[in-house]
């Protein structure tokens, strides 16, 4: 009995001494006083030094995209540090391309604030907000793809460009002990500032998709931040070539909704790639758009049809359909969203038709 007491007391005391030492060190050694963050040469923030650039910016309500929550494993939180960031750490190097290094990019989660610092971030990030939204509706588009509508809280509004994405937080749930953020393109039109629609597919073992498909129900609260992304509608009069597979349809939907609502008179073609007829969705809606929009054609293409499917449309992957219908690349621009092999093959077809690479906008996932 006595030894239990003594050992508990001693262990507690030793731990307390170490904790005290660390606290003192944190207050003195780790105290970098107040530092100034200059953003884009105009905005100045006076903050407490000693923590990472990412967490400090988030405290100041500037949301840098980050999927891992500052552990230095996702490589999304790159920020241009012009001055005062110190040398780049070995923990960041695996995520940096030669171009990133030349542009003084740093992972903001690894860059610690020790002195006044000058950074440059895209203007759009100032527009990023966090929302405690509520699931308003869930529709099964296919067996593995759901369309979810999230209602923003009272008084909150979101303004984004069609094509941009938001991050959805997957909280802890049974079988998941890690909070992660995952990016999903917004499918609804930017004119709807009170709600967001996302198209989310099920990926087996996916932390966020399992959360959405197996746990999320109407009325549940979710945490969303955004908008992010440099894939969005470009205002000009070029003919639009759009292509998407699976959940990549989401940003294209947002683009089309936006064009329809604003009665934009541009020629547009949308190539929707899938494997089998049951993987296609919202066909009625695209047919309706064909009739109501200025000059829009919807071209679904299936890569794995059998005779039983009675499919009369295009057969093959999307790049094949584009190759067939796209005559030349004159005065055209392209919007693509899908997985890497799909994007790569479509970009190849488009450039061979003469669309310059800088007019091909895409979102790879």
């Amino acid at each position: 009995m006595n030894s239990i007491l003594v050992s508990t007391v001693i262990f507690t005391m030793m731990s307390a001494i170490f904790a005290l030492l660390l606290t003192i060190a944190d207050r003195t050694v780790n105290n970098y006083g107040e530092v100034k963050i200059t953003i884009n040469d105009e905005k100045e923030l006076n903050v407490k030094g000693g923590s990472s650039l990412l967490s400090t910016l988030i405290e100041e309500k500037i949301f840098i995209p980050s999927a891992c929550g500052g552990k230095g494993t996702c490589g999304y939180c790159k920020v241009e540090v012009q001055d005062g960031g110190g040398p780049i750490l070995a923990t960041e190097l695996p995520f940096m391309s030669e171009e990133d290094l030349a542009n003084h990019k740093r992972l903001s989660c690894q860059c610690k604030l020790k002195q006044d610092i000058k950074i440059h971030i895209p203007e759009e990030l100032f527009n990023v907000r966090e929302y405690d939204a509520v699931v308003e509706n869930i529709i099964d588009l296919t067996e593995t793809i759901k369309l979810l509508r999230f209602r923003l809280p009272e008084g909150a509004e979101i303004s984004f460009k069609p094509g941009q994405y938001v991050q959805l937080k997957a909280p802890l749930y049974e079988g998941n002990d890690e909070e992660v953020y995952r990016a999903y393109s917004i499918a609804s039109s930017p004119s709807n500032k009170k709600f967001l629609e996302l198209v989310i597919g099920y990926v087996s073992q996916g932390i966020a998709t399992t959360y959405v498909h197996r746990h999320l129900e109407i009325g549940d609260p979710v945490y969303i931040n955004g908008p992010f992304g440099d894939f969005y509608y470009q205002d000009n009069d070029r003919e639009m070539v759009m292509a998407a597979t699976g959940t990549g349809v989401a940003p294209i939907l947002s683009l089309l909704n936006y064009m329809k609502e604003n009665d934009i008179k541009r020629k547009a073609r949308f190539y929707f790639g899938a494997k089998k007829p049951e993987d296609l969705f919202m066909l009625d809606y695209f047919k309706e758009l064909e009739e109501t929009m200025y000059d829009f054609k919807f071209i679904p293409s299936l890569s794995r049809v059998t005779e039983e499917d009675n499919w009369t449309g295009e057969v093959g992957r999307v790049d094949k359909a584009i190759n067939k219908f796209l005559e030349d690349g004159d005065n055209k621009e392209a919007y693509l969203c899908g997985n890497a092999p799909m994007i790569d093959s479509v970009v190849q077809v488009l450039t061979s038709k003469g669309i310059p690479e800088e007019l091909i906008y895409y979102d790879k996932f």
Partner: protein
Amino acid sequence: MIELNPMIIFVAAIFTNNMIFSNFLGMCSYIAVSKEISTSLGLGEAVTFVLACTSVINYLIYYYILVPLNLEFLRFIIFIVSIAAFVQLLEMILERYLPNLYYALGIFLPLITVNCAILGVSLFMIIRNYTFLQSFAFSIGAGVGWTLAIVALAGIRQRIKLDSVPVGLRGPGIALITTGLMALAFMGFSGIVQIQ
């Protein structure tokens, strides 16, 4: 027990009782950070430094606090706490006052907290009843030996990268096999000195 010269313990800890090759301790960072010679050397130096410091701290804690109170059995948990606290403290101090050293070694420090070779050395010196000087020599030797092992593996892995290793063995697989062969080679040193 024969009183061993600290120098002998030092040499033995490098060659015959190498932490990696004879005890297989500290394997996680050994496998993870052995892709390049320069980074593995940095980690090795950091491990050596932390080993030297923590063995002193733990020696003092054990013989001046735990033994008088008959709490020897608490050493496992106390050593872990003291190592973790020391590494944290060291990281903060390095970052503030020796930034250059921090950029070279400091980023490895969080890895070291959970490096079992560090705890292993502290426990071995207690189990083997080393004196203070012997413990210190042992810890430095263990650090040098660990560094030698990781740098050697990094050198070999840089070569292996150019070879066509079977798909299933790429990465940690071939590194572990290599380590096994290296351990066999190190058995050749066993005739030099023996420590228990």
